[in-house]
């Protein structure tokens, strides 16, 4: 019997009791495992945003037509984006507030680009359950703090789009953007 075991590789080889077949087994299963992972990766990754979706991941916005006190609603990554030019009075109102009293403490400076404090660029997505707040359109309700007002559950944002009242936990998100000229920004 011993000779048969040696021929088919199932007999003990060496002092540690590891057989040649154990090595072949582990090597074969590991190799198949690596192959399986290599196949699963593209199967999972195909669910991520495709190139055409990512191509829309940045948006250029022309600011020249926005007068002080006015705002526009556009889209960035297929979600609403608010761009607003604040009036000096609105800036003063935002600066007057002590940030430490806020739910999500931030100053207007931290939420705008240096030297362009009048340009407030935020996502138009309420941080509560994702509704689109009012206040960017002409004559829409801006809530009691003069910024934006979410009609779904009554969250009120101030002139720096910071949460002041209602269920939303955070300020309206400020996306990454930069000024490409004095009157244009590139978002994303």
């Amino acid at each position, binding site marked *: 019997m011993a000779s048969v075991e040696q021929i088919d590789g199932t007999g003990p080889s060496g002092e540690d009791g590891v057989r040649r077949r154990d090595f072949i087994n582990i090597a074969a299963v590991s190799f198949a495992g690596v192959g399986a992972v290599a196949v699963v990766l593209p199967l999972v990754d195909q669910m*991520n945003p495709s190139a055409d979706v990512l191509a829309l991941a940045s948006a250029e916005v022309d600011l020249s037509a926005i007068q002080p006190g006015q705002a526009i609603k556009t889209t960035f990554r297929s979600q*609403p984006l608010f761009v607003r030019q604040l009036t000096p009075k609105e800036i003063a109102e935002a600066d007057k507030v002590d940030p430490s009293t806020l739910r999500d403490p931030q100053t207007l400076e931290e939420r705008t680009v240096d030297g362009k404090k009048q340009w407030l660029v935020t996502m138009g997505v309420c941080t509560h359950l994702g509704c689109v707040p009012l206040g960017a359109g002409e004559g829409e309700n801006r809530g009691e703090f003069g910024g934006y007002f979410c009609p779904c559950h009554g969250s009120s944002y101030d002139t720096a789009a910071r949460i002041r009242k209602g269920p939303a936990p955070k300020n309206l998100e400020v996306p990454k953007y930069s000024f490409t000229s004095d009157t244009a920004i590139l978002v994303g």
Partner: protein
Amino acid sequence: MSFPWAEQYTPKHPVMQWVDEKLPLPRLVYNAVGAGYPVPRNLNYFWNFGVLAGLALVIQIVTGVIMAMHYGANDLVAFGTVEQTMRDVNAGWLMRYAHANGASFFFIVVYLHIFRGLYFGSYKAPREMVWLLGLVIFLLMMATAFMGYVLPWGQMSYWGAKVITGLFGAIPVVGEPIQTWLLGGFAPGNASLNRFFSLHFLLPFVIAGVIILHIWALHIPGSSNPTGVEVKGPQDTVPFHPYYTAKDGFGAGIFLIAFSILLFFAPNFLGHPDNYIEANPLSTPAHIVPEWYFWPFYAILRAFTVDFFFVPAKLLGVLAMFASILLLFFLPWLDTSPVRSGKYRPTFNKFFWILVIDVLILGWLGGAPAEEPYVMMSQVAAAYYFAHFLIILPLISRFEKPLPLPGSITEAVLAKYGKTDGETVAVPAE
């Protein structure tokens, strides 16, 4: 897999004998849902809902496959093709209303099926696996129903998809990449719609597969019954066919009448009018609500409004909502009472009905706007839901003194009809 006194499959026709030798499929059916499956003789009408759930799945698959023939899974045309199905396709309105209301009826019968199991202790040994597989089916149903609701690409479809996938966004660090991965974009769009359609078509067949496992696991110990006393002999059972095929057939008739009343006279009663407005990413409906069958869970989700240490309220709500279902997987080990049926458990019985009322209240609150006093009520009701399973049930199992059990199923049946059978009465209760 069956009791020794089960009737044997003996094909008489030579063709059937030939088939039985090559592929004993008729034998399998005979032993599963034919005369070869002995069933306790005392099942009441609450035992109809398993078969009714199967019927509801068949209705969904038939109407769904037909609707897929007329549907365009593209965000530019999806809404239009659904309206075209409603207006232009022959009997398209019937298919769509049957599919939409069929989903509601599927959940109605499944909820009754689940509460039947909760009351009569069907989840207890030796049927734990039946219960666990049933919960897997329930989770698959929820995923399927959610994705199906997105397909018409109306306002509630779009914003429902946004809110529900946003739940994953609440998970720290990996949340947002997961949300983007699920949607195939930064907000619901064409990629999301297509993958939801593909999975919505696939999952019902996965459900059908798990149902086969569910029935397989059930047929190993055999069906439970309203007394919770195990079958002791041939006098306790009757063959599934013709006894329960007839009883289930009658139940199916009642089910179809109720379904037809809603389908033909109030097809939009359970729907939301906002879903007849095409999806618009720039405008939110005033009041986002999921379909009614998700309301109890939606109420638990929204019950958390305060951060707890470093865990944000939104994440707590998400965890609680998932926990409310995952909790049920541990039920067979939380309820340690050896008595199965709620009929013989006086304390459990009362708390069972309080739980039913609590879940109904949660359901009502889930459909209400997220403002006071509803939020506070949701918090109380959600807390009670968890307390029932984690505190009350283990305590009852420990301290309750159950009522005396009947000696056997036959004894219980005969006692109910005022007859006695010397032989079975003599069997001591234990």
